[in-house]
């Protein structure tokens, strides 16, 4: 396949991104977001699922769950490059919604073949779905699920760190049996499903662990033994999506902190005059630009050159995680005292970024896997 020099970021992608920017500016501005998710500073807030369902209905009206679904299944069949543009805007707005998990789940479903056609149709029609299969140690590796399938095809065990579980209608559950890993669609209201909300720091999402007790899945998406392959195929898209979220959120952190540096006066100067403020802002920009270019590189590789998609996606996730960490850290420090308060908006992005950094493996994890790919496994040289 060919890799377009412009990443394949075409007019449709531009329109999608532009629409997202405007919708979120209108309905998820920082003031509104803070009022929505940070009204209560008390610790009880941590395990609540707070979001704007009216905004979600607008997103559904715009068909955003359908963007990645093929046209033959009722979707728009857009490439990951266009999706990355959309997700950048969700990150920039720090918008709480089940869209990102649903997009991730869509790529898993796409990798499952015809067995997931029905699910993809439902997603295109507005079903929100999250992925469930991380173990208690936070590992997303295929073999690390704690959910098992019994001889009757019923699922039992706990899936940890399920993102936005409080907002979705269904889950794609990773489960092990003697034949290997399978993937199963589970409706959240099915018998035997208990969703236990975690108390988390990030105010712009929710997280839960999902306890399954002999749950009959609504559908088998990948039979035992076929699940790992589908997950591996979808992983570059998932990593790219999370990285795009971080790049968008980082841009908000950069612009908001730069604006503060242009207006806050100390020692009779806007603080951006001081190189101790100016240069870290430039370094935020440099790191973000590197990560952003790698996000589009990875999305383009996924769309056009699958054999290099994994390496590119891990590079993007690693660079974006590091950029997010640096931008979060400096956005608070450079805001000085005010940046350290609950009422200042920077805390919302800080916490969203910290959460995204570790999702599906932090920067060091991605680099460790990349080292295996690019330097050979340890012991291979000796």
């Amino acid at each position: 396949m060919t890799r377009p020099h412009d990443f394949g970021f075409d007019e449709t992608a531009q329109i999608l991104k532009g629409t997202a920017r405007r919708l979120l500016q209108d309905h998820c501005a920082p003031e509104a977001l803070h009022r929505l998710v940070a009204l209560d500073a008390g610790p009880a807030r941590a395990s609540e699922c707070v979001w704007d369902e009216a905004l979600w209905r607008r997103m559904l009206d715009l068909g955003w769950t359908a963007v990645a679904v093929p046209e033959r299944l009722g979707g728009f069949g857009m490439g990951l490059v266009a999706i990355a543009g959309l997700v950048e805007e969700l990150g920039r707005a720090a918008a709480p919604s089940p869209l990102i998990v649903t997009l991730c789940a869509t790529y898993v479903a796409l990798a499952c073949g015809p067995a997931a056609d029905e699910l993809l149709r439902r997603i295109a029609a507005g079903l929100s779905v999250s992925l469930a299969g991380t173990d208690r140690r936070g590992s997303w590796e295929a073999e690390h699920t704690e959910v098992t399938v019994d001889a009757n095809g019923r699922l039992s065990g706990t899936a940890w760190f399920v993102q936005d579980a409080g907002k979705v209608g269904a889950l794609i559950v990773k489960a092990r049996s003697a034949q290997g890993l399978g993937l199963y669609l589970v409706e959240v209201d099915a018998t035997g499903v208990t969703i236990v909300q975690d108390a988390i720091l990030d105010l712009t999402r929710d997280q839960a662990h999902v306890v399954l007790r002999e749950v009959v899945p609504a559908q088998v998406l990948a039979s035992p033994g076929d699940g790992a392959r589908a997950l591996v195929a979808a992983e570059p898209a998932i990593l790219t999506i999370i990285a795009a979220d971080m790049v968008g959120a980082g841009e908000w952190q950069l612009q908001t902190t730069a604006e503060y540096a242009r207006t806050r006066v100390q020692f009779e100067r806007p603080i951006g005059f001081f190189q101790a403020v100016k240069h870290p802002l430039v370094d935020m920009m440099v790191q973000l630009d590197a990560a952003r270019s790698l996000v589009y590189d990875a999305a383009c590789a996924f769309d056009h050159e699958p054999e290099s998609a994994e390496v590119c996606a891990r590079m993007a996730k690693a660079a974006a995680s590091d950029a997010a960490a640096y931008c979060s850290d400096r956005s608070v420090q450079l805001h000085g005292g005010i940046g350290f308060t609950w009422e200042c908006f920077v805390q919302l992005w800080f916490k969203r970024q910290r959460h995204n950094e570790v999702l599906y493996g932090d920067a060091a994890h991605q680099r460790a896997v990349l080292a295996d790919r690019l330097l050979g496994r340890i012991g291979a040289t000796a």
Partner: protein
Amino acid sequence: MNQSSESSEQAAFRAHCKAWLASGLPPRPGFRLPLGPLEIATREQLEYLCAWQKAAHAAGLVGCDYPREYGGGGLRDCQWIANHELKAAGAPFFPNIVGLGMAAPTIFHHGTEAQKRRLLPPLFAADEIWCQGFSEPGAGSDLANVQALAERDGEGWRVNGHKVWTTLAHFATWMILLCRTDRARKHDGMTYFVAPIRDGVGRGVTIRPLVKMTGELGFNEVFFEDYPIADDLRLDEVGRGWAVAMTTLLHERGAGSLVTPSAGGGLGDDSETTLGAAGLVELAKRSYRHGKPASDDPRLRDAIVKMLIRERAFAQNERRAAVPALVDHPLRLPLQHKLTLSELLQDTARLACEIEGMAATLHQTDPNAPAGGRWPHAYMNSFGFTIAAGSNEVQRNILGERVLRLAKSK
């Protein structure tokens, strides 16, 4: 541990500390202790810690180097010994941190005899808690921009203004208060007061808690509206406020001549209640990466050892600062104290979050949060330390200008 270079007074004092601490530590409370004075949230925490400071003071471990007439111990160069033994014994911290670290040395150097006799004894005994009224919304790193106005009103003064970041204000009896008394002048238009703010609540003083990004309390805003203050509560002369404030900050930054009484922060169980690098080792042994203990990951091992080295270097800097032959400039090590400590705490907490991985997403109220969820909170709270008392950016300016004699950046 016998110290070869100690005077006999010091040796005797060390023995006294050891003996008293062997039985003088308070019992563990039935509630969770805060991680530091800035995190004191409940009255029961405060009372427990004040009782402990009072007992330690009664035993002579607090304010040892101050004269006896001011509630001190009348010794010379002994506070560091008490601190060392307190830390070794795993004693809890002293709650009157602003009083001991900032108000006491300032009152001692700039107060009248009457002020010293009135204010210092209850400060050491934690009978009266102190808070600081320096920062304002427009005067953070740029302290010389203080706008809170004290105007002459008959014999005394009347204050109008708005202070922020006043730790412990809601528990405090007294505030050290920096005001402008002459709008036409900058550095020499300020005057320094000690304000009985608890008595002032409802009579011109309003205290409003500021919520930190963690959702916790700890700082306050204090509003003054026509708040009356007597002239005998002024410290040093009118217009000398900046010089007095520099004494305060010198001590806050660890560069003063009087050692601040301090203790560990724990009750013997380091890994549970402190935020030191030793906690990282424990955490790494209990956390997993790539299916193996995080303590087996060579990259994390390297990062943890870096923190252990920085922590030891910090302690050895304190040790070397007391050896004149190994010090090139008297302020060089003391002015690094706050800078290196705050960044060490921040980097340690950040690394802990990395070790925790996905579990670092959990709030401290989540039962599955590792180490009680204290590390992500510690990381966020660490910005209070890298920003407060002159942001670290300003600290680097001061070090560059005062020690390396570089041109002033402001």
